[in-house]
């Protein structure tokens, strides 16, 4: 039996208000326990309000983008999942029955999707609880154990992330994902690793588990009982949490305060009309519309905001040129800095200016990259740098040519005497002094101008 990996992915949905009350969800900027009300702190007598409609819409759209079938025309119950924990104010979590099943994304089957409410944040060391997060809408996406290596799991999550970004469905401050990863390796019972907050973390946790489990099997002490482990973010290891009892009993109970939901086939059809492009459909369209190579289209479409920026820029400069530059320079520089386009804070206006200058050849490719780096690292505007460079990237080529001629009087005289090869020598010197930041044509002109005097 080979390694099998299945994921449970929690995504905080991007809504203004919480799942069952009207509290604001902007918990990042808020002091602890300021975004709370009797409902999300489970005061005696408080009741959930209706299901947040925006949350439901985002949940359904996400499921549709994951290729799921929506359970329409059936009563969909919101259940109470009971367990005692300080971050859970009612000591039960409201969680829906699966509203979507049988999806598939890049070869990984999606078993089901349901929504639930986020618990608060419990600080073990101080014993303090912050309920600002309590009640924020979540979806949980459960895959089949279709991934065979930790790398496959990582690649799948990257793609999943792109899809969710395309929908703009997730709260980025929630870290986008919280993942519980299930892994079983040869000869071992299944292990669930909880508390993984990043895609990189998933890779690390799974790699660690795979090696740990294989070693255990080799030593003749394989894992015999399903267990739950905790991912230690700082050390990149997993630690034993508890044995997973098959009798884990949450006493699921349909919440009597929330009448069952019924999703109509018509409403699903309507949502389908309203779905954004997926990375796949977008790449296809970019390729056709802008006549760019498939590989470039795929790369650009791998980030929704990058693709949006590309389309804006491609309206102003040559699309093929822009595409090449996005892939060969922009994306590369972003990757180098492990930044997304949105994180880079680059504006399409600035990029357009830079690309226009490049297109007109008023700066060289090399200078273009320099300027891009400055824009990324020093938050300087392209316009300012271009002006400063006076279109020549900061070099007074004429005085440099003059300098070169003073230093190489003999070569200059040779040229004047009719030895044309000397020109190449002089131009080479100028190019060396300007560190290749200038077009050869510019250098030749400057040298010729200097020689005429």
């Amino acid at each position, binding site marked *: 039996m080979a390694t099998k990996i299945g994921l449970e992915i929690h995504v905080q949905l991007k809504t203004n208000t919480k799942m069952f009350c009207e509290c604001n969800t902007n918990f990042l900027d808020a002091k602890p326990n300021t975004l709370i*009300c*009797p*409902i999300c*702190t*489970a*005061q*005696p*007598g*408080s*009741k*959930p*309000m*209706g299901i947040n409609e925006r949350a439901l819409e985002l949940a359904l759209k996400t499921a549709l983008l994951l290729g799921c079938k929506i359970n329409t025309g059936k009563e969909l119950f919101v259940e*109470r999942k*009971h367990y*005692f924990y*300080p971050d859970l*104010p*009612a*000591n*039960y979590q409201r969680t829906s029955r699966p509203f979507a099943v049988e999806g598939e994304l890049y070869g990984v089957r999606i078993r089901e999707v349901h929504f639930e409410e986020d618990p608060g944040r419990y600080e073990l060391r101080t014993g303090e*609880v912050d309920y600002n997060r309590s009640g924020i809408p979540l979806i949980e996406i459960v895959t089949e154990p279709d991934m065979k290596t930790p790398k496959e799991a990582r690649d799948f999550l990257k793609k999943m992330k792109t899809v969710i970004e395309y929908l703009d469905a997730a709260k980025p401050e929630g870290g986008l994902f919280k993942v519980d990863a299930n892994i079983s390796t040869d000869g071992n019972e299944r292990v669930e690793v909880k508390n993984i907050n990043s895609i990189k973390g998933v890779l690390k946790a799974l790699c660690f588990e795979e090696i740990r489990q294989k070693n255990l099997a080799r030593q003749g002490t394989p894992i015999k009982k399903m267990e739950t482990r905790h991912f230690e973010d700082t050390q990149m290891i997993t630690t034993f949490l508890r044995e997973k009892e098959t*009798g884990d*009993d*949450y*006493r*699921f*109970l349909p919440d*009597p*305060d*929330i*009448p069952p939901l019924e999703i109509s086939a018509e409403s699903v059809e309507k949502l389908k009309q309203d779905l954004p492009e997926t990375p796949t459909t977008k790449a296809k369209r970019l390729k056709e519309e802008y006549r760019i190579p498939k590989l470039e289209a795929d790369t650009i479409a791998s980030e929704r905001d990058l693709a949006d920026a590309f389309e804006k820029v491609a309206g102003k400069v040559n699309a093929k040129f822009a595409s090449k530059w996005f892939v060969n320079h922009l994306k590369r520089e972003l990757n180098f800095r492990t930044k997304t386009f949105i994180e880079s804070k680059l504006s399409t206006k600035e990029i357009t200016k830079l690309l226009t200058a490049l297109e007109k050849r008023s700066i060289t490719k090399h200078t273009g990259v320099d300027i891009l780096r400055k824009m990324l690292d020093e938050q300087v505007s392209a316009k300012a740098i271009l002006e400063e460079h006076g279109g020549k990237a900061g070099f007074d080529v004429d005085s440099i040519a003059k300098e070169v001629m003073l230093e190489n009087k003999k070569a200059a005289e040779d040229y004047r005497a009719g030895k044309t090869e000397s020109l190449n020598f002089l131009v080479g010197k100028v190019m060396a002094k300007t560190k290749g930041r200038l077009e050869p044509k510019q250098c030749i002109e400057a040298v010729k101008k200097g020689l005429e005097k």
Partner: protein
Amino acid sequence: MNTKTKLEKIKSQEIDIEEESQKFLQKITDSNINAFITVNEKQVIEKAKKLKENISKQKAGKLAGLLVSVKDNIAVKGIRMTCGSKMLENYTAPYNATITERVLEEQAIIIGKTNMDEFACGGSGETSFFGPTLNPWNNSRVPGGSSSGAGAALAAGLCDLSIGSDTGGSIRSPATFCGVVGFKPTYGLVSRYGLSDMTMGIETPGPMARDVYGAAILLESMAGNDPKDNVSTKQKQFDFTTKLDNFSFEGKTIAVPKEFFEGSETTVSQIVLDAVEEMEDRGADRIEISVPDTKFCVATYYLNMYAEFASAMQKFDGLKYGFRTETDSTLNETVSANREQSLGKEVKRRILFGTFISMKEFQGKWYSKALQAKNIIKQKYEKIFSKADFMVSPAAPFTAFEIKEKIDDPLAMYLADTLVSFANLSGIPAGVVPFGFSHGLPVGVQIAGGQNKDLEVLQAMQTLELKRGEIKWPQK
């Protein structure tokens, strides 16, 4: 003085609200029946003063100047809300229940929070952590429950109106035992937001009063859509008072369910049958019906209640609020100790039953079957009310019993719910109006109607009330 007259006299300033409030507060202080857990002394006088100054200037609210008591499982902002439990002995509600908001908007003065069985677990008023409430008609008897303080306070004249709650007869039991009017509205008519949970799928707050008009105007103030309660009616406002007198039994059909009389004391049955005769005299047709499922009502009710109650009680861990014991043990041990030391025997019994029947092992066996049974019962009653306008019966098989008589026999106590839980399971309105006395103890008549026939039930109740005439209230 009846409620209608009192309201008029308050508006015309014949009654000085401030003096009246002081008089009531004094009566509470002097009373020995333990009807209140918290008396809102300071605010009552402040509010009365303010209202007194303004009552001539502005349009008076529906409940202007009436002293309303609130059962202690309903949130009143800034006032202690104990649910009759040690767990919440020092808990102050940080918000108002929707119905609290509404009665305050109608200028009611909230006089205090009434005693009750702990977390509404009981039908006699004896399980309160704050001690039993006594029946004003005979202090050795129970007042019924769980809205025990609400019923007793009215009979003893300690408030004008009471807000109670009815999960399985908790308004109607004290109404019949204390000789006051109690009304359990159609499920969803009155918002449950702010009512501490017991059996969420069937319970509702409701009005109690000395007369039907009082109950009707309190209901009218509370009823209507609330976005904070998912099962709440769509309709925004209701009128239960202007047409209250506009009623005749002529052409109405009264169903008399024989099983409801079989286990009842003869004197109790007789008073109810007198009421039926009175209705017939006024032109109603009487049909005898058999409701063989009555015996399943209590079982169905208790299974629904156990499962939902155990779930609802999860939140009381003593960590966020509520009773907290001094301990430095683990989290789970702390929560267990908090619950162990602050919850009463009957509450624990119900939590344990509820936890047991909702276990994975029994999924599909108890609770889901109880939900199915609830639906079947609901359908049966829909059928009854397609043929009859009202169903008339006793609300309890006996009059108020001795304190401690049944407290150690939960089954006997549970059986007292036989004649009331049908209305909760089927979501229909049912009210109790006192119609006679047996050995000095009041006996109420229970009238139930079809879904949303709340006004009609109140009208029928008032007709009986007019026939009965004035009650000579206990003087103590």
